[in-house]
């Protein structure tokens, strides 16, 4: 199976603090990977390195066959690498319909058209509305984002990423801050994403991880501590000690 996204020997230091230590990962196309590890293990940093929001001190980031280490974040998005944020990074003064339409227009390279009326770009608007409907955001899509309930805002995070039509999607704690009884809805959405989409998600809730991931990477202190199928990881005594054992089962 071909590799959709890979990190090869990636290193990163903040001053003397090592946040990524010789990271090697390879996500096969269509895989569902969970990235777990204690707080401060460097999970979000790894996503920043993969997406180009941080530049590694050494090593390479590969997207399919191409080395994208020196490419800007937006160039990687255009190649099909999208992400969401652990802390909402939305457009508070736009409504969800406008925000997702904005992303679709950017993807279709129509966003520079300053002489056209946006209302005439029917295909983009329809596509945006379709994405929102799929994520059950169709109803509130005319309401300003800042007025949306928090759980809807988390879904909009995913909607914005999906509107870039990614091949690889990195989800940074998609249900962060959402009460447990509502987080199910978010992971239903995640679970329902296309099989062709390669997925890496950070999540603390082990029930969720074991339910949705086909493969788990355990990160500790900026280095990969263990990697394997859910069964292998849950049986790994080292992992139990550093991670599962200390944090319990959610």
């Amino acid at each position: 199976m071909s590799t959709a996204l890979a990190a090869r020997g990636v290193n990163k230091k903040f001053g003397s603090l090592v946040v990524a230590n010789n990271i090697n990962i390879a996500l096969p196309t269509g895989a569902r990977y969970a990235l777990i590890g204690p707080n401060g293990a460097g999970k979000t940093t790894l996503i920043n390195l993969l997406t180009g929001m941080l530049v590694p001190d050494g090593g390479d980031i590969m997207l399919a066959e191409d080395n994208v280490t020196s490419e800007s974040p937006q160039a990687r998005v255009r190649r099909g690498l999208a992400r969401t944020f652990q802390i909402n990074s939305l457009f508070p003064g736009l409504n969800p319909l406008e925000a997702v339409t904005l992303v679709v227009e950017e993807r279709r390279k129509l966003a520079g058209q300053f002489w056209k009326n946006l209302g005439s770009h029917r295909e983009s608007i329809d596509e945006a509305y379709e994405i929102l409907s799929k994520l059950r955001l169709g109803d509130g899509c005319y309401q300003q984002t800042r007025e949306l309930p928090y759980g809807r805002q988390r879904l909009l995070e995913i909607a914005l990423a999906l509107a870039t039509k990614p091949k690889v999607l990195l989800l940074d704690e998609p249900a962060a801050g959402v009460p447990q009884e509502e987080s199910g809805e978010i992971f239903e959405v995640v679970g329902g994403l296309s099989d062709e989409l390669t997925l890496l998600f950070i999540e603390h809730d082990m029930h969720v991880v074991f339910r949705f991931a086909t493969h788990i990477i355990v990160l500790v202190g900026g280095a990969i501590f263990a990697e394997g199928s859910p069964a292998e990881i849950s049986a790994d005594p080292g992992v139990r000690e550093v991670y599962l054992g200390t944090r319990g089962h959610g």
Partner: protein
Amino acid sequence: MGTAKLAINPQIWFSARSRWRMLEIYFWLVTLIPFFLFPSYLSLASQIAITALFALSLDLILGYGGVVSLGHAAFFGIGAYTAGLYSIYVTGEPFSGLIAGSVFAGLCGFAASFIVSRFRHLTLIMITLGLGLIAQEIANKAHWLTGGSDGLQGIKTLPLFGMFKFDLYGYVAYAYALGILFVAFLGVRRIVNSPFGLSLRGIRENLMRMPAIGADSRAHIRMAYTIAAMLAGVAGAILAQTTQTVALESISFQRSADVVVMLVLGGAGRLYGGLIGAAIFMVARDQFSGIAPQYWYFWIGLLLVGVVIFLPNGILGGLSQLYARWRGK
């Protein structure tokens, strides 16, 4: 209200946003009143139209793109000097002078945009302030070209369309300024309702997210900044042509600061905010400076503090909130 829950479809929602409202038509009808009721205030009315166009150009980058500028008068002044010099050395035909002023201001804006698009917040304010000061002192030093502090003299403006002479009362001047303002307004209105306008608002709302959705914000900012500089240049050019002089004041820091004040007073990011802010500012200046010429900024200061504290979205923002409440929303 009863109409609120109709199932709207997304395209209709977008199209409705750009539809003309009755209030807008009234607004533009009101701008015609000076011709009939206040002929003695026509020159003030021209000044207001010119300043409104200047504020509109700032609204595009500041109000919609969130790009703060404290040096926007540079482009106004460049447009004014270019149009003035054009009339002295080339021809006094007004429309070609307008284009000359606009194009040169736009070129300067395009050049500056490569710096401006890379920065944000205080750094950006300081950079635009610095660029504005540089432009001002170049105009001051180049006395041989600009007349320096004596102003640029000898501008002659030929009749509009070769038919309408710029008269002493200012009928033609106001018609000219108002006509250009209206055309420019139509252009800006189109831009803010375009896909590009949506991207600008995206930049204003969350610049950090833009790369994560694959957008090249810097390219967008460069384009908006260039268009804004062109429009500011047009405003400056009209001032040069209608007053037949260019004072150093037209490229000064004071003018840069004033236009930000006007936009904030009126309400940034709402198209009409700059126009209304400019009108309030210019009328206030006219009235207050009649009472106490040296101290009239006191009242502007008071108004500014009051508006920013009590109406954070400007006078227009406050009015639209009142209107929404009155409609029972």
